[in-house]
C-alpha cells in the first residue's frame, strides 16, 4: 500500500528549500519495498488525493478558440477527404506572464497571448500538418484541406462521434497565476532580492523572476476523442553572483511546477533566495576541476536531468521505431545494473512535467522504462505506437499548435534503491560529488553526452571537500547504466526545465536518489601529472 505524507507538496532539505512536490512513500516504506526487490506502484490513483478539479477562472469561457463540436466535426471530415486514416484538431489558447527584477529594480512585466489551431492527418507512416492563427471558418477549412493533402486515395466512410472525456487531475492549482496582478508578484521578487543580497556582502548581482504559462487546449480526433485541459506552469527563480578579488561565482535556485499561485509566498521567496546565496558562496572559492576518470556521487533530487538526457532520450519510441537509438533492440534485455529502475511518470502531482492528458488526448501515465536493469519499454505517442503495434504511453507531446506531437518525456526519475547515502559517500576514496547538475546534451544514436556542473566538490576519503568549477561530465548512457553500483532510497522529484527536441520545447521534470557511478570521464581544466 502506498502511504502519502501529510505535508503534501512541500518537504524541506538543506537550507530549508522546498525540494519535492510530494513523497509517494515514507522513507522506511521505500526501503522495505525495494528490499522486496519490487518497484512500487500506486494502487490508489494519486490524483484523487489532490483533486482540485476547478480550472483557473481566467481561461474558462468565451475565448475565440472555443470551437464547438459541430465545427470540429466538420474540420475532421474535411481533413479526411483524401482518404487519410486519422485526423485530429488541436486548439490552443496560451497566456504567458513574466515579471523580472534585477539591479534592485523591477525590470518589466510582460504578457503574451498565443492562439491557434493545428490540424493533423495520418496515413501509414505519413504525417500531414498545417496550422493557422486565423480562426475564420474559411481559413480553418483551408488548413484542414492542406493537412489532408498528405493522403492519397478515396475518402473512406467513417462516422465520427465526438464524446467529451473526463480526465484526472495532477495539477496543484487553486489560484491561476494569470489572475494575480503584477504588483502582487512584485512583492515576492523584492523579498527574494533583499534576502539574497543580505546573504553575503560579496554577492553583487541578484536577479529574480516569476513566470507563468496558462493554457487551454482542446483536442478532437477522428477516433472520437474530445478533451479539454487547462494547464498551468509557474516558477519563481533567483540567480545571484558574487565577486571577490577577481574571483566570480554564480548560483541559482527556484521553485516551480504545475502549481497555482497559492504555492508561492514571502517565506518561499526567502528560502529560494537563501539557496541561491548558498550555492553562490559555496562556489566562490572553487578550484579548477581535474580531468580524467573518477567515481562520482550524484546528490538526490538535483541530478535527474542526467537520466532524462543520457538515458531517457534513447528510450523514446520514435528512435526505437526508426532504429536510431542505441536501445532500439534492447527490450527485455539487460541494459543496466540490477540497481537501476527508471520511470517516466506524468502523474506526479504538481511536478513540472505532469499532464492530465498528453497533447493527443491520452491520459498521463506512469511508465517503467528500466526495471532492475532490464529494458522494459519505450515512450510512445499514437503514431509510433501504432506503427510498432502497441499503445500510446501518454507521451505524445507538442510545444504548441504549431507543432505535431512526438514522443516526449514527462517526469523522468531513477527509482529508489536500498543503499545508505552515507555508505555511498564513504565508499569513494577519491572522486567527485555532483550536488547539482546543469545543462547537457546527448546524441540518442550513440548515447554520448556532456553535462556541466554548477555545484560540485572533490570527495577525499569519503568526505566532501574542495568546491570545483568547470566540471564537465562526459560519457555515454549505456556505459553509465552498467556502472551504477549504489542507489539510495532517498528519491526526490522536483524542479526541471524545458527540454528541446526536434525544435520543440516542452516542460519536464526529473528526479533521482543519491547514487554512485563507479567511473565516468570528467572534463576539467586541470590535467593531473
Amino acid at each position: 500500500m502506498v502511504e502519502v505524507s501529510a505535508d503534501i507538496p512541500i518537504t524541506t532539505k538543506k537550507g530549508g528549500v522546498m525540494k519535492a512536490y510530494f513523497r509517494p512513500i515514507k522513507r522506511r516504506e521505500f526501503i522495505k519495498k525495494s528490499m522486496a526487490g519490487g518497484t512500487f506502484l500506486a494502487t490508489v490513483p494519486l490524483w484523487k488525493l489532490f483533486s482540485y478539479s476547478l480550472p483557473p477562472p481566467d481561461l474558462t469561457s468565451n475565448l475565440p478558440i472555443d470551437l464547438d463540436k459541430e465545427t470540429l466535426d466538420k474540420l475532421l471530415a474535411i481533413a479526411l477527404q483524401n482518404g487519410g486514416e486519422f485526423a485530429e484538431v488541436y486548439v490552443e489558447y496560451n497566456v504567458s506572464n513574466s515579471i523580472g527584477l534585477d539591479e534592485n529594480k523591477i525590470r518589466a512585466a510582460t504578457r503574451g497571448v498565443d492562439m491557434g489551431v493545428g490540424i493533423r492527418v495520418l496515413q501509414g507512416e505519413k504525417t500531414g500538418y498545417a496550422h493557422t492563427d486565423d480562426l475564420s471558418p474559411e481559413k480553418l477549412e483551408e488548413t484542414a484541406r492542406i493537412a489532408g493533402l498528405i493522403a492519397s486515395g478515396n475518402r473512406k466512410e467513417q462516422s465520427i462521434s465526438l464524446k467529451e472525456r473526463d480526465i484526472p487531475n495532477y495539477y496543484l492549482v487553486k489560484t491561476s497565476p494569470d489572475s494575480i496582478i503584477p504588483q502582487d508578484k512584485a512583492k515576492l521578487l523584492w523579498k527574494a532580492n533583499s534576502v539574497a543580497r543580505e546573504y553575503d556582502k560579496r554577492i553583487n548581482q541578484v536577479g529574480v523572476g516569476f513566470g507563468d504559462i496558462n493554457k487551454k487546449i482542446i483536442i478532437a480526433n477522428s477516433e472520437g476523442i474530445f478533451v479539454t485541459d487547462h494547464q498551468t506552469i509557474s516558477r519563481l527563480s533567483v540567480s545571484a553572483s558574487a565577486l571577490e578579488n577577481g574571483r566570480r561565482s554564480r548560483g541559482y535556485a527556484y521553485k516551480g511546477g504545475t502549481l497555482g499561485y497559492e504555492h508561492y509566498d514571502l517565506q518561499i521567496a526567502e528560502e529560494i533566495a537563501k539557496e541561491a546565496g548558498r550555492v553562490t558562496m559555496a562556489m566562490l572559492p572553487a578550484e579548477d576541476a581535474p580531468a580524467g576518470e573518477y567515481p562520482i556521487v550524484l546528490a538526490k533530487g538535483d541530478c535527474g536531468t542526467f537520466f532524462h538526457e543520457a538515458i531517457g532520450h534513447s528510450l523514446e519510441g520514435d528512435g526505437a521505431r526508426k532504429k536510431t537509438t542505441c536501445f532500439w533492440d534492447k527490450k527485455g534485455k539487460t541494459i543496466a545494473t540490477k540497481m537501476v529502475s527508471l520511470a517516466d511518470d506524468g502523474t506526479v502531482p504538481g511536478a513540472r512535467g505532469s499532464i492530465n492528458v498528453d497533447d493527443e488526448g491520452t491520459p498521463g501515465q506512469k511508465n517503467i522504462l528500466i526495471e532492475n536493469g532490464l529494458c522494459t519499454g519505450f515512450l510512445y505517442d499514437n503514431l509510433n505506437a501504432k506503427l510498432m503495434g502497441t499503445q500510446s504511453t501518454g507521451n505524445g507531446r507538442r510545444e504548441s499548435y504549431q507543432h505535431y506531437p512526438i514522443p516526449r518525456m514527462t517526469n523522468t526519475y531513477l527509482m529508489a534503491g536500498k543503499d545508505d547515502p552515507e555508505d555511498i559517500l564513504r565508499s569513494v576514496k577519491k572522486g567527485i560529488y555532483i550536488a547539482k547538475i546543469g545543462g547537457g546534451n546527448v546524441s540518442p544514436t550513440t548515447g554520448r553526452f556532456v553535462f556541466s556542473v554548477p555545484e560540485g566538490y572533490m570527495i577525499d576519503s569519503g568526505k566532501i571537500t574542495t568546491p570545483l568549477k568547470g566540471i564537465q561530465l562526459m560519457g555515454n548512457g549505456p556505459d553509465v547504466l552498467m556502472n551504477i553500483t549504489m542507489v539510495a532510497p532517498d528519491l526526490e522529484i522536483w524542479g526541471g526545465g524545458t527540454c528541446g527536441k526536434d525544435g520543440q520545447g516542452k516542460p519536464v521534470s526529473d528526479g533521482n536518489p543519491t547514487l554512485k557511478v563507479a567511473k565516468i570521464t570528467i572534463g576539467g581544466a586541470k590535467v593531473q601529472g
Partner: protein
Amino acid sequence: MSHKDIAEKVVKEALTLGVDEAEAYLESSREFNLEVRNGDVETVKQSATKGIGLTVYKDNKFGFSYTSDLSSESLREFTKRTIQLAEVADPKSWNGLPDYGQEEKQWDMDLWDPSIFEIENSKKIDTAKKVEKSALAYDKRITKSYGASFSDGESETIIVNSKGISRSCKTTSVGFGVSVIAGEGNNMQSSGWSSTKRHFKDLENIESVAKKAGRRTVEKLGAKPVATTKVPVVVDRYAAGAFWYGLLFAMDGDSVFKKTTFLTDYLGKPVASELITIADNPTIPRHMGSVPFDGEGKITKENTLVANGILKMFIYDSITARKAGVNVNTITQRGGYKSSPFGNFLNVIVKNGNISREKIIEGIVDGFYVTGLRGIGTDIPTGNYSVGASGFWIKNGEIAFPVDGVTLGGNTAEILKNIVLVADDLDMRGNLNSPSFKVSELAVGGK
C-alpha cells in the same frame, strides 16, 4: 489593412492613450517543410504565423506584450493592457527608444527570391529523395537513414516607432539536407549535411550535400577516447562557431556594465593572438546572416569587433548603452515578435589566415583535430573553458583515427592568445563564420 498599417495604428493608439513612446514590431511568416525517410514522404508541414509585439514607455517605465490575435477590437484591449504592465515597472532614466529616427536609407540586399514559390511539390519531394538515396549509397557502412528534408519559407518583418522609424523587409529561405547513420550495435555514428540559402539558385547541388553527409558520418566510425594529455589542437571551421560563441557572449555590453564577464577590463587591449580579426557584417548580399535593419530598426553596417587581437567594442543595444553611459555603435537582434530587442551580433565573420588547413595538420606530430564541440564551453564570468569534443587524432602530420568522448579544458582568454595559425578555409554558411585555426596547446581530458 496591411500589416504596416496595423503596426502604425497600434503605435498611434498607444500614444493617444498617453504613453511617451511606443514601438510595434510585427512579423508574419509562412514555412513549408517535408521530410523523407527510406524513400517515402514521412511528413509535410505547412505553417502560417503572425503576431505583433508592442513596447511602450511612460514616465521612463517599460511595458511589453505580444499577441497573435490581430483583430481590431482585440488590439485595442491589447494596447491598454500593455500600458498597464508599464505601471508596475520601476522607472529607469535610461529607458526609451533609440535616439535616432528614420535618417538612414534602407538598401536592397537581394534577400528575396520569388522563384522559390514556383518550385513544384514533386520537385521538393524528388530533391529530398535523391539526396537521401545518394547519401545512403555513399558507403557500404552507412546502414540507415535519419531522414532527408526540404524546406522553404518567407517572412516579413515590420518595425514602426514613434520616433519616425517605419521599415519593412521581406526575406525568403530554401534548403535541403540529409542525416544518415553508419555502423551497427554499439558502434553507430550519425551525422549529416545541409544547404540553406536565400535564393534557390545558390543551393549546393544534391550530390555534394549527399557526399558530405556520407563522408562526415563514416569517418566517425570507431571513434574512441584518448588518454588525458596536453597537445596542439586544430579546431575545424565548422566546429569553430561553438567556440566563438563563448567570446561573443562575453562581449555583451550589459554583462560588462555589471562586471559579470571575464572581458570586463579588456576593451582596447589584446584579447586574442594578433592573427585574429573579427567583424560583424550583416550586409553581404544574398547571405543567410544578412538583414537590412537590426532589432531596433537601425540600418546595419560592418563593425569590427576584434582587430589583430585587440578588442574593439562591446555589444550594446540602445538601452544598455545609455545605461552604461557609452556612446557606441549598437548591434541588436530580435527573437521575433514575442521579445524585445537585445544587444547581440548579427553575422560574425572571423577573417581568413593564409595557410591551408592541410598544411596546419601536416605540421603537427601529435595533436587533436576537433570537428565537433558539444556546447559553448565558456563560463562567461570566469572565462573557464570546458567542453566535450570529438574529431580525429593527428599523428606525424596525418589523420590517424577518430576520437570521441573527450573534453577540452582551459581558459578562453589563454586559448585565444595561444592561436598560432589561422587557415584560409572560411565558408560562409550561417551567422557565425570562421576558418579553422590551431591552438598551440590545450588540455584534452579522456580516459
